[in-house]
């Protein structure tokens, strides 16, 4: 039987060069030319410094900021480090897991403690961790739930805060794809621009 060694070796090396070097480098070149902002990570800059990416959520914990979704990401040693952009991942807790119920209860308690006046049930996305641990969005309902707390902490009119939420709410893409959402980092940055009363 013909061993097929020469065609195998040549095919492997040639296809590797085409699909493993020419293709990704070609895409990189064209992407950098046509969509440099997106290809580089859709970065948000202030005063020349990179403060984040519009696609990667950040950890906000102060009462004056809108909080993003809980994040299950960890650092290199496996210790919790929410919104670690260098090590994505979810909690992988099962729906039946006692740990899931415990951690959701703790998050509910923290939200209630931060704003004892809020009586509505808490939207599910605000107490569950995302798959990537880097979710940049919360639902409009979750933003609305936090409006009272943020307004109070910043000394702003709640109506003004709700106005900003509405301005930062994106509907489903093309009317039917995905979910309505609010970008937390962009909303907080917009809040920082509003002078206190």
């Amino acid at each position, binding site marked *: 039987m013909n061993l097929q060694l020469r065609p195998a070796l040549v*095919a492997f090396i040639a296809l590797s060069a085409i699909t493993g070097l020419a293709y990704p480098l070609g895409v990189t070149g064209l992407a950098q030319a046509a969509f440099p902002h997106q290809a580089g990570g859709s970065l948000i800059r202030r005063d020349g410094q990179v403060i984040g990416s519009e696609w990667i959520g950040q950890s906000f914990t102060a009462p004056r900021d809108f909080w993003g979704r809980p994040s299950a990401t960890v650092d290199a040693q496996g210790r919790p480090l929410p919104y670690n952009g260098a090590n994505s991942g979810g909690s992988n807790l099962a729906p039946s897991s006692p740990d899931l119920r415990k951690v959701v209860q703790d998050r509910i308690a923290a939200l209630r403690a931060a704003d004892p006046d809020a009586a509505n049930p808490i*939207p599910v996305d605000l107490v569950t961790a995302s798959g990537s641990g880097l979710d940049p969005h919360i639902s409009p309902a979750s933003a609305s739930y936090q409006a009272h707390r943020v307004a109070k902490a910043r000394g702003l009119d709640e109506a003004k805060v709700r106005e900003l939420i509405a301005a930062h709410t994106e509907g489903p893409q093309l009317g039917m794809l995905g979910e309505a959402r609010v970008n937390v980092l962009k909303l907080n940055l917009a809040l920082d621009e509003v002078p206190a009363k």
Partner: protein
Amino acid sequence: MSHAWSQNLLYLALLLSLAYPVGTYMARVLEGERTFLHPILRPLERGLYRLMGIHEGEDMGWKAYAWSITLIKLLGLAAVFLLMKTQAALPLNPEHQADVATGLSINTAVSFITNTNWQAYSGETTLSYLTQMLGLTVQNFISAATGIAVLAALIRGITRRSATGLGNAWVDLVRSTLYIFLPLSFVLALFLVSQGVIQNLSSYLHTSGGQVLAMGPAASQAAIKMLGTNGGGFFGANAAHPFENSSPLSNFIQILSILLIPAALCVTFGHMVKDRRQGWALLAAMTVMFVGALAVCTQAEVNGNPALDRLGVNQVASVDQPGGNMEGKELRFGPGGSALWATATTAASSGSVNAMHDSFTPLGGLVPMWLMQLGEVVFGGVGSGLYGMLMFALVAVFIGGLMVGRTPEYLGKKVEAFEMKMASIAILLPCAAALIGTAISVLVPAAVASVSNPGPHGFSQILYAWSSASNNNGSAFAGLNANTPFYNDGLAVAMLLGRFGVIWPVLAVAGSLVKKKHTPEGLGTLPTHTPLFVGVLIGVVLLVGALTFIPALALGPVAEHLTLRSIR
């Protein structure tokens, strides 16, 4: 109201309408006809053949064909392994990723050459850009192209009469890569970048607030990973990562690209056997099973987690929130966009994820698990799904033949003892690997120690891992710590069995069928393009899957579902 259902309908409509043009185009490529890309790619193609020292018209028997496919995969195995073991000293490694441990390197190399793309590794913390590009991206192309090549050989086995040659493996590989995967991936990658998926060679970015942002050539790999039903992510969180799958539109298009080629190959099949209805019948059987699975998964995830209802959490969908079971899901996709992805990725042998399947509701997680266990034939992997389904079609005509007491035939070829033996091996070997692997794991303390969730769900994690590896899917209940010697080695064996243990019998069937004369249709022939046959085929697939796996599923997701409502 959740957008889940309208999104699902739009998806099915687009998928089925795109299947025709793409399927016809692929048939032209595999039959060596001229396409609109020939002016650009034909010189390159001819140059490759000259370098390889082969002639396009040179046919191979089934053994030479199977050996060629095996050989290029062995070269891939060696290349990926060596890249991972030496990446620290190689270029395009701005993060100075260290050489990868041997066990993980073998597991990853096996997983990529078998089109499984099991992620025991986490891309952004483990792999250099060079390893991602020259190792993983290349295997994404080649393993997908081999799937199409094996399918092409099987189809020729059916259509050619009293012959021995099944075509040339190298020509099929080169043509699938150059004319099908390369141009589609190029366009898809650029589209994904326009939506926010990153594509650069920069080192990781440090923001002024101290956040580290992983970078890299993600779009080029994401594109072929979807189109080739590979599924291995550039990042650890796979397509849940916003830099790998940014907007809802990028999500939708990526789901479409999972099933596009597997669905279109049914049309290619009909075209190549010169009876379009045969292709539509297979596509219909796949679509019916897919729609059922999609409905169950979507409903389960939209309904949410009953264990959280009692804590005072609002899981009801409205214009202001997606609601549903949101643990492990991205807000921009919601339960609908996540359930659609989960169903498509496990119907095909993609295994990419945009949400963590481990956190799905019990029934929502049962659907992906069972779709894998059916042997990845509901659309399935590129090529592998259809050749798997054709094995089931042989079994279906065989059972039909038994009922009327006549030698069964499929598309004019008699189906005899040898074909049935090979089809049985191809169908049952992955089932056996999945169940035996699971059984061994629950007896080995080191394997049980990897489980991260208590109760029936822990068993589901193990069953899911073996089902995924044996059927070359690659998705996971990722809480299971699979980067251990036991799972790295054991699952690697399962992946090899699931790929080569199917490819060799399928090509043996092709080699046997191609020698046979054409048998004219008679009164006792079971027509294979009718709704009746579609029904029989679905029945056979479901029956094999049900008889093999229902006991195991009862111990895992079914038990978890029944206990979930009583949790307090």
